[in-house]
């Protein structure tokens, strides 16, 4: 990976308060193109709050968000997606009852003519949907297949391919593997790897799973109680460090003693 580049997206001292509750207390991180940046931390640490600030859902109380060297403010998710931040939430924002293609282009359909009554370019959209999903590793036979009949891994791929096709430079994945079976988790990891290999996209991956993080992450940031408690590249960190930091800094060794 190339660390001499400028980060695609960077946060500096992000603070987010919900009333008197400090959800984030000065979080800084840098995410580079072609890198998988794992965001790790216990439940309630503030990971989701951080990515919601990055995707325009929440406005930070203070601190800066810098996209490609320019300071940026997001007033809505639309602002964020316009500068190329694509977020794939846990529910994936898919309509299970309609086809792959209709979901792929939902809200951004290709059509003949202007206005919402424009006739859909169905064949063209089928072609693009198949091609884009194939690029990150999933071959769809039938683009008319309802999304509900796809496997969880295929749905993740659909949501990711869609975000990339519509211009995401920063791809944010909130626990993409948590609801999946073993085999599908691997499928999703392979997909993420393929996106990483495209080289120009920065990926922020939130996960609880240390093994998954170790398989694909290039860089780590650990968050606990709203603060960064450690960070580094995969080379810098040993397995024990990762485990200790994921648990919020407590020694796993201590736990072993307590359980004994």
């Amino acid at each position: 990976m190339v660390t001499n580049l400028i980060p695609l997206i960077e946060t500096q001292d992000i603070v987010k308060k919900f009333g008197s509750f400090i959800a984030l207390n000065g979080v800084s991180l840098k995410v580079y193109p072609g890198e998988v940046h794992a965001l790790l931390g216990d439940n309630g640490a503030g990971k989701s709050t951080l990515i919601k600030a990055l995707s325009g859902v929440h406005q930070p109380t203070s601190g800066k968000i810098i996209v490609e060297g320019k300071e940026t403010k997001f007033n809505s998710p639309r602002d964020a997606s316009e500068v190329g931040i694509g977020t794939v939430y846990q529910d994936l924002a898919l309509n299970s009852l309609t086809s792959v293609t209709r979901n792929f282009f939902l809200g951004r359909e290709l059509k003949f003519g202007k206005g919402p009554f424009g006739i859909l370019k169905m064949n063209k959209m089928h072609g693009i949907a198949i091609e884009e999903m194939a690029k990150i590793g999933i071959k769809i036979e039938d683009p008319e297949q309802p999304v509900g009949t796809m496997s969880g891994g295929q749905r993740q791929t659909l949501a990711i391919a869609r975000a990339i096709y519509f211009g995401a430079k920063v791809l944010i994945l909130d626990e993409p593997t948590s609801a999946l079976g073993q085999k599908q988790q691997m499928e999703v990891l392979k997909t993420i790897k393929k996106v990483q290999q495209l080289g120009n996209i920065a990926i922020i991956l939130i996960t609880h799973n240390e093994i998954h993080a170790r398989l694909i992450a290039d860089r780590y940031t650990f968050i606990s109680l709203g603060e960064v408690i450690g960070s580094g590249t995969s080379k810098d960190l040993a397995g024990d460090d990762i485990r200790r930091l994921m648990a919020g800094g407590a020694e796993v060794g201590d736990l072993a003693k307590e359980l004994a």
Partner: protein
Amino acid sequence: MNSSNSLRKESDRHKSKSSLISILSRPEIGPIGVMILLFGMLGYFSIPASETTWNPFAGEGFNALGIRNNLRVISQLGIIALGAGLLIIAGEFDLSIGSMIGFAGACMAMILRWGFSIIIPYVYFDDGAHIEFYTLLHISDVSPILAIFITLCFTLTFGWIQGFIIVRSGLPSFIVTLGGLFFLRGLTEVSLRSFNHRPDQAKGATTVTEIPDIKNIINLPGYGEMEREAAKYLPDGDLLSIVKNLPSDVIYKITERLEYTFQRVAEAKTNLLIAKGVKPLEKALENAVASDNEYMIKTIQEKIENFKIDPVIPKSVTEIDIARAYIDSIGTSRPIADFFGGNILEPIFDWLYFPIDWNVNNFGNQFAPGLYSCVMIWVILSLVCYIVLSKTQVGNWIYSTGGNLSAAQANGVPTNKVKISLFIFSAFCATLFATCQVFEVNTSDAAKGNLKELEAIAAAVIGGIVMTGGFGTVLGIIVGAFIFGLAKEAFFYIPGVDGSFYRVFLGFVIIASALLNENIRKRIMGNI
């Protein structure tokens, strides 16, 4: 391990389906089956008891008038089912459709009957405060298109208000449109009563009558505009002079057709007379057979065979007949009224009478003049809805708004606009229904459209629309309307069965369809 290309992939688990299987697994296939069953019932049970034909299309249910009447019921329901169905696909409901029909019909009829005014009330202080009215605008002779337009302004606004309240408040559409149901019905009755409180109407009636037969206003050359019936009963002298001015080929055609009609009428009369004369003999024959009197049987049989009656002589065609037939053939001079309330396919139905000789009633006259216009309106509306729902961007928005609201919003679909537009569309469909009715029968009644909202929802459900939204097709809604309308007729024609059994049958079909729809939905959602 084998070579990697022999590994099974996730996609291998989706069997590729043959085209027959994929047709059979379409959501409309169940409803289409029921529809064919009803067609069969309607045809089979309407075969007269004595005939032994196995052709189900030979029966009374399929005569020209039966088709005309059935298709009216079906298409009227079909029009509002489209509004209701699209709204359900987007995840909402409209219970105000029936009341909206009554309201729109009354509104249009009142405007056509008494004109349209905008009146501003204000408080006047001389000799004690009282309310005065200032008439800002009064149009006394409102054209059909303007009456429709004004009515649409009211109904579409009401649809918009309902939709706006629902998306803004987050209240269930059930409760808001239930309010609309009572509000509109009450408003209709109140306004009809107050407008009827006049010397020319029975006090307090909730109907509007005596609207001129607008669709039958014609422009009679030399006489100007008048109602067709009035023209046909002009003094004989006038009628004769009209014929004088007709080109000879027109006269020839009309005469040919009238001669045919008079011939058929005479034949029908002759047959009736024969039947009348033979009937007592047949009775006698039955008695004779019962008493086994061979001699009597033989004589009566001979009498029946030799029964003769002088055939009725056809009326000859007079110039007055020609004039009246010509007046019947003049096109309307109010095309809008005719578009909604008139007939369509008249040339075909004429042709089916002469020379095809099928569209004939028991008296030898033409049975049905054509189909009701609402059939055409339904066909046009269905086509538009089909294209919008399955071929346009809006269609995808409708499906996603009902299928997964938050997903649609996250992808930038203007879900509130989609919903409000569909509430407006539902009001539009109800107004179309009312327009067809008003221009067809030239009256209106506050009770019109009662319970139609439930019939529309039922038709949509029978046609495969899932009540929770996101799933269904226009073809399904069309088939649903067919089933609902046919069921009524099919049960009516079963001899010895109470016609109301159709409701029992429909109740069963509704629940069965809902179960089937839910099963299909779960299968697609991956829960089965």
